[in-house]
Structures are given as C-alpha cells and as structure tokens.
C-alpha cells in the first residue's frame, strides 16, 4: 500500500493531534474514500474542498468519530484510535474533537433555549459545577462568539437569525473545551454577506485557543480565508493538496482549475454561447479525474498533485 507524500507540515511527526493514514471507506460497493492521508495540528486549519459526493463529509465524520473507516488508520495524539474504543476512551475523545454542522437551524433543539444548549456541555465536562458558574460561563462563551449574552441566552432557536444560530453552534462546540474542531460547511447555508464574519470568528478562535481545525467546504474561496493548507478532493481521492496559496495560485490539477473557475467573479460576466463548451469541459474533467491513480507529483515544496489515472476507453 503506497503511503502518499505529505506536505512537510503534515509529514512532520511532532504534534499532529489527528493523523489519518490511507483512510478508505466503502458503503457496500460504493467507495466513498479511496486513500485519504492528512494531519491536523494545533492552531492550524486544513480545508477539504470538493463537490458534493466527493467524500469530504464522510472524511469529516470519521475524524469526528461518528463513523469508522473500512481500512487505514486514525491516530489521536499518537495513539491508534481507528476502531471505537471503550467508554472512558470515548468520553475523552468526545471532549477533544467537536463538530460544527452545516445547517444552523437543524443543529439546535427547537424546544430549548440558547442557555440550555451551552450550559449542558459545560456541566457535562466539568467546566461548571452548578447553575451559577454555568451562567457566568455561558455569558463568557456568548461574548466570545460575538453575541450579546443578556439578550441571546434566553432566546430560542427560531428567534435567531442564521448567522446567530451558527455562532451559538460554534459556542456549543467550544463549551466542551475541544482540541480539534471539525467544521462541516459551516457557512454554506448562510448569506454570502455574513460568511466572512463567521470565517473571521473561526479564524480568531483557532488562533486564541490553539485549535486544530478541519474545514469542509465546496467553495474554495472561503477556504482561502481560513485554512493554511488545502486538500482538493474528487470522487474520494485527494487530487491536489498543499499550502493554500500555492494550490490556489498555481493549480495544476484540471479539477482544481475547474473549481476555481466556477467561483462567481463579478469581473467575468457570462458570455452567451459558451454553455455547451463549459458543460462538455466540466464533464470531461470529471471523467478524467475519477480513475484511481498512485502517481503523485511534487510541484514544489508543500504542493502536490495527483496525476490523472487511466480513463476507461
């Protein structure tokens, strides 16, 4: 089994909190993940970018311990945790790895207030021992994510805007006191105009709390704002990865180029008569990017691209 070349950051064995090695995951005959290797380090964010169905959410769920790989290993602080461990084990890992979900509304229980959502994790993990301590801690958390504590704590999910709900979700994840935060498309259900605010919030807490972050998205433009490293995925494979600036400024894989070209650019209006060509090109890129390939080229330090595999005739 080939172990893929990793970026220098990833390859550096020290202080990777989470390390995935050649993770594969199949659902019946469908191969959702075909050999993913990456490492998450404190204070740094890694973006997994790709279209729906590429396996990025499956990967996120494996890191968040909501799913187990079919093969490959996952290490947490050096210890192999690939298969679910015992109860004590699970509680520690639960505390260490938290997740922020895509749908800000569905992530909150409609019958409980914001206070309940934040107080529970605080109490469960011993950060607050009683109601009084919890109240203070909840207020601090809300302030930390940019919400007005007095007003917001009492509100119910349906009384908040999408952006506010997502901030509460982030606060809840932080309430546990994790070392790793997995953010699964945290802004894709929000208006574009408030995405930057949420991204800035995530970037700030990453720095302040020295969190390792795994950021999942289909929009490569948002990845550039938060992640030092990016992994572009297609059909369960990593097709191009490395330092964000390197990958984005010099994309070598046709799929990465396709993704970049599709980001809405107000300076490039659609020209009539191009659609057939674009559609044909997109189909072609997808077809060529799908087959498995073990050939990885090192474009430069910290920038790798997978060569195209053999396309069936």
């Amino acid at each position, binding site marked *: 089994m080939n172990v893929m070349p990793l970026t220098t950051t990833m390859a550096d064995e020290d202080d990777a909190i989470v390390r995935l090695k050649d993770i594969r995951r199949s659902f019946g005959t469908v191969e959702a993940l075909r050999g993913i290797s990456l490492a998450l380090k404190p204070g740094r964010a890694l973006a997994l970018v790709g279209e729906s169905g590429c396996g990025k959410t499956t990967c996120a769920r494996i890191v*968040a311990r*909501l799913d187990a790989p079919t093969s490959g290993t996952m290490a947490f602080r050096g210890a192999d945790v690939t298969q679910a461990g015992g109860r004590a084990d699970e509680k520690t890992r639960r505390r260490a790895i938290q*997740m922020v979900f895509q749908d800000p509304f569905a992530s909150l229980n409609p019958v409980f207030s914001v206070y309940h959502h934040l107080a529970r*994790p605080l109490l469960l993990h011993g950060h607050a021992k009683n109601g009084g301590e919890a109240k203070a801690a909840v207020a601090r958390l809300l302030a930390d994510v940019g919400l007005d504590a007095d007003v917001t704590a009492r509100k119910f999910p349906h009384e908040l805007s999408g952006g506010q709900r997502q901030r509460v979700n982030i606060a809840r994840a932080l309430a546990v006191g994790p070392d790793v935060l997995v953010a699964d498309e945290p802004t894709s259900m929000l208006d574009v105009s408030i995405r930057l605010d949420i991204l800035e919030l995530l970037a700030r807490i990453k720095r302040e709390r020295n969190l390792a972050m795994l950021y999942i998205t289909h929009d490569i433009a948002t990845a550039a704002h938060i992640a030092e490293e990016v992994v572009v995925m297609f059909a369960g494979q990593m097709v191009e990865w490395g330092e964000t600036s390197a990958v984005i400024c010099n994309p070598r894989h046709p799929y990465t180029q396709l993704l970049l070209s599709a980001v809405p650019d107000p300076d490039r209006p659609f020209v009539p008569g191009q659609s057939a060509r674009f559609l044909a090109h997109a189909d072609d890129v997808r077809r060529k990017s799908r087959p498995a390939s073990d050939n990885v080229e090192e474009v430069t330090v910290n920038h790798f691209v997978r060569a195209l595999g053999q396309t069936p005739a």
Partner: protein
Amino acid sequence: MNAGVSLFWRQKKAVAGLVIILTLCLMALLAPVLAPGDPSERVGRSHQPPTVEHVFGTTKMGRDVFSQFVWGARPSLAVGFATGLAITALGTIVGLVAGYFGGRTDATLDLATNAVLVIPNIPLLILLASFAGTVGPMAIMAIIALTSWPWGARMTRSQTMALRQREFVVAARMVGEPHWRVIFVEILPNLVPLIGINVVGSIIYAIVAQTTLEYLGFGDPLRVTWGTMLYNAQNSSAIIVGAWWDIAVPAAGIALVGLGLALINFTFDEIANPQLRSGPALSRWLRLTRLRRRELEAAR
C-alpha cells in the same frame, strides 16, 4: 414550550374542549354533592320521563338516571383516562427505544409490536369474561392497555427515527449527552404534539372499548358506570318502551367526552404543524382574501 402553552390558550377549539372535559370531571368529583345518596337506590316509578324531581328521568328499576350518570362518570372517566395514559406510555416508550437504537433492538420490538397488533382485544376480553363470569375494571384496563399500544408505538417510532437523524440529536451525542438523556430530554419534548394526539386518541378508544364490553354484559352489573347504564337500558327494552332518556343520557356523556377530546386534539395538530394555526392573524388574512376575490369577480 411556553410558545406552545400560549398557543393553546389562543385556540378557541382547545379551550372549548378543555372546558367540556373539566366540567365532566368536576361533575364526577362532585357526585356526592350533586346527587347525594346511593345511585342504585330505587327512588321513583319505573321509566319516568324527565321531570323537575328527576332531571334525567328514571330507569326501569326506578333509579334516578341523573344520579347514575353523575356517579357512573367516576369509573367510566377514571378507567378511560388511566387506560388511555397507560396505552400512550407503553406505546411511546417502545416507539422511542425502537426508533432511537435501531438495529436488533428495533427488530425485536417490531416483532413484539406486530404480534400484539394482531390480537383483537374486544374478542379477547369477551373470551376472558366468559371464563371469569365478569371482568372488573382493573382487568379491563390492563387488557385494553396491553393490546392497544402498537398503533402509538409505530407512530412514535417513525417520528423518532426522523428526529434521530436531525443534527441537534447528533450534536447532543457529540457534546457527550448519555443515551437516556438524548431520548427523554432532547427527543421526547419534540414529540409532545404527537404524544398529545396519541393520548387523546387512546383515551377515546379506551372509553369506547370499556363501554362496549359493559354494554355487552361483560362488566360488573353491580357497579354503576355509563356502560352498565346502557346495558340495563338495553335489557329493559328502553327504546321500545319509549324511555329514550335511559339510553340517551349515558350515550350523550360518552359523546361529550369524545367531542371534548377531539377539540383538544385539533390543537396538538396545530402546535405540531404551524401552518394549521388559526390565530386572529390567519382569520383576518382569510377574510381579506375572500373580500378581495369577490371584488375582482364583480369587476369583470
């Protein structure tokens, strides 16, 4: 939750239903005050029509129908409500556990649900009664409860399965909530509208089932309940003789309970489905829309 309670009060149907039920319950509680004495005592001539002295008339045996009605409400309502709650509790717990855990737990419980579903409870009760002679209210309650929960279990299970996938449940687990808290604290409150419908339906069902048994003669003839009232009325050929009050009064009682519960039921539907909510805003909207439509037609 608070939104639900205030919504409840704003629904006129629900308030009406609640008033009906509470009145009946109050009436049952105040039986010694409203109809002092023994309801089985012979106090008048046989099959007397309603008069000032006997507001609901008398039975064939000369018993005061009003007195019987008021005293009979006690076992009928009590057993009905208790059984209804028992049915709901059983069904909800089975549904929650099956829907939440899935897998083998679900398969086993599903098997049990299907097995019980097939048991016809009235015939079973009749069978038991024909062996035992008569069936007391506790036995009736137990058997109705033990054979009627599957319907609610099915409903609860599907709803639980749907909620199980919702992100807030996954999030609760991720944050470290133990299974039992996720089921009873996080998921259960979201099922309240469903459980409400279940309770109401089960109570109505239990009351009707109990009454049916008693009407068929399988109740305890010495106890005064609405069902035995019907049984006695039937046996004394009340309708043929023209003593309509003998049948009408207990029947009306049951119908009123059904009506009250059904009205309350609408509200649970409305709490669960906001689109059905008929507050003053919606009435205004409907009225304005109707007006406008008529104007446009007229202008043609």
